[in-house]
């Protein structure tokens, strides 16, 4: 089917997974309301299964998107491999969130249908954030993604920690959105459009390279993204929000919110600003160095495992920034590959932490992991796999992902980034392996927590994630090919839009291919 956005129906078709998920979320809200006798009752477990079903349906719709063809590479809604790939990633994170959270929400008396609904709506926001080609829609996606997450962070109203985490996250999140929006306004003024492909064309064709509006706007966009992906000078909200939020929500935030922000970062900067790579490449270069060094050094001295994992997720943002800085097909492919591995191992590690922390999240200290491997071999083994993969041990997905990122950095001639990535990874071995050491070589302390019970759904999710992490470490071929398809779709799209000709200078072809509207000079 050919999509040219000539009618409303075409928009709905192109946005089918998002539309489906939104409608499904509303239905769940209704079901949740009507199956309760009174307001204080917890939601029935069926809500969780309905949520899973909705995510699977959206996955099917997403697969079907592959049969669509877009008429122009400037369409507001992208129909490329990149969107399909990242959509699958967000849906996968949603499924894992549902599987790991049911028991926790029940024990914390938080079994509320609206939490799942908020998760679904946030997933829709992620899909719009990473899958559209208009800065204004990207802003709406960003807000749709963030607002439910603010609520989820503060979901545990009995906990002061949860409220503190939520307010810190909210204030800095809204602050960063404002930067993002002002950046959009300036780019809109400078390039006279908000369509990513047309912005790239305006920069490349009309000699806007030196236009201060576009350059400042781009810098503000980068600041906004920097907050969302928690790159280092903008990371101060991360440890607090992650520690305060209910543990499964932390897993969701660390994995898919960050993945969505990164995917949108990649799409916006590679599609709209390839002509300004000299400027933003250097910026991302320094962000990556700062992020890797600061986060890894801070994690070294962190005794609280939840907080340690928060710093670890910041450190991984640094590795992903290296892939972004290299701005090539290989870089983008390794970026997507690592994003999948990162999601799996982060949610996995946080899920084990959810299980160990127990009721009221009492057991967050590293001491609580003493002897866990012998008390509960299954949890011990999967946690060890996730930790080794996070550290980047050979034969795990984390290792292969880092190797691809290194290759992309070296091919771009950024050897310093590669060196720092390797050195900081070596540093990170210490704090990951320390947890593994406690699990296998320490006696359980007196008054140790009861054997941790994990529900079947959670065990299944953990084992599946661990198997995937190992399998992708041994045989990365299939996923890598998919990642390369997604990446090349992103990087080749603007080229099809006949570069070098502008309607202002009488080039007709450019106008035909890209639906350019003639632009009036600014003033």
């Amino acid at each position, binding site marked *: 089917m050919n999509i040219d956005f000539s009618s409303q129906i075409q928009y709905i078709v192109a946005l089918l997974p998002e539309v489906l998920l939104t409608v499904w979320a509303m239905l769940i809200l209704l079901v949740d309301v009507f199956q309760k006798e009174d307001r204080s009752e917890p939601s029935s477990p069926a809500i969780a299964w309905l949520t899973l079903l909705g995510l699977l349906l959206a996955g099917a719709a997403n697969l079907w998107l592959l049969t669509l063809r877009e008429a122009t590479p400037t369409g507001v809604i992208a129909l490329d491999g990149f969107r399909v790939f990242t959509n699958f990633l967000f849906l996968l994170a949603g499924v894992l969130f549902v599987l790991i959270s049911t028991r926790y929400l029940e024990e914390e008396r938080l079994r509320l249908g609206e939490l799942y609904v908020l998760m679904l709506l946030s997933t829709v926001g992620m899909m719009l954030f990473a899958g559209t080609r208009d800065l*204004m829609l990207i802003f709406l996606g960003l807000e749709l993604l963030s607002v439910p997450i*603010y609520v989820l962070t503060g979901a545990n*109203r009995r906990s002061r920690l949860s*409220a503190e985490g939520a*307010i810190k996250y909210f*204030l800095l999140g809204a602050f960063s959105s404002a930067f993002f929006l002002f950046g959009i*306004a300036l780019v809109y003024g400078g390039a*006279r459009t908000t369509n990513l492909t047309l912005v790239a064309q305006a920069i490349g064709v009309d000699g806007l390279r030196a236009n201060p509006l576009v350059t400042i706007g781009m810098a503000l966009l980068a600041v906004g993204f920097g907050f969302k992906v928690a790159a280092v000078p903008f990371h101060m909200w991360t440890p607090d929000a992650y520690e305060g939020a209910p543990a499964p929500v932390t897993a969701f935030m660390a994995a898919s919110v960050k993945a969505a922000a990164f995917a949108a970062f990649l799409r916006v900067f590679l599609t709209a600003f390839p002509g300004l790579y000299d400027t933003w490449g250097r910026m991302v270069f320094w962000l990556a160095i700062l992020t890797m060094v600061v986060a890894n050094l801070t994690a070294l001295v962190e005794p609280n495992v939840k907080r340690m994992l928060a710093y670890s997720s910041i450190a991984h943002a640094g590795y992903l920034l290296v892939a972004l800085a290299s701005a090539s097909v290989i870089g983008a492919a390794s970026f997507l590959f690592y994003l999948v591995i990162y999601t799996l191992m982060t949610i996995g590690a946080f899920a084990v932490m959810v299980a160990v922390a127990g009721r009221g999240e009492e057991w967050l200290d590293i001491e609580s992991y003493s002897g866990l491997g012998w008390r509960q071999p299954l949890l011990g083994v999967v946690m060890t796999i996730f930790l080794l993969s996070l550290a980047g041990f050979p034969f795990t997905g984390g290792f292969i992902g880092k190797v691809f990122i290194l290759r992309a950095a070296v091919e771009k001639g950024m050897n310093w980034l590669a060196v720092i990535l390797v050195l900081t990874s070596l540093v990170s071995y210490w704090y990951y392996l320390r947890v593994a050491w406690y699990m296998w070589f320490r006696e359980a302390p007196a008054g140790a927590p009861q054997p941790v019970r994990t529900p079947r759904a959670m065990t299944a999710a953990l084992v599946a994630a661990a198997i995937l992490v190992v399998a992708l470490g041994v045989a990365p071929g299939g996923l890598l090919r998919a990642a390369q398809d997604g990446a090349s779709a992103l990087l080749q799209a603007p080229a099809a839009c006949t570069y070098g000709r502008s309607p202002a200078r009488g080039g007709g072809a450019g106008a035909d291919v890209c639906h350019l509207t003639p632009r009036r000079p*600014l003033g």
Partner: protein
Amino acid sequence: MLTLSLVLAAILFAIGVLGVVIRRNAIILFMCVELMLNAANLAFIALSRAVGIEGQVFVFFVISVAAAEAAVGLAIIISIFRHIETVDIKNFNLLRW
């Protein structure tokens, strides 16, 4: 005229940023963020005279987004107030900021 409007928007935005950085009351912080959003709105409107009508449409989007954010933000501020009876962020000290 356009330049002046953009300069005014930039000044408003800077005041908002400054407010977020130096003030300590959660509600005032939130108002400063709103100021930043409205600075962006002003820039959109000023630019739309030169670029096209979309700029004014964006403003409506931003207004509704800001309203949604306000609803959630004030609810969060209330929920923290119930715990510690203050909205001064220097008292939010359970987590190391």
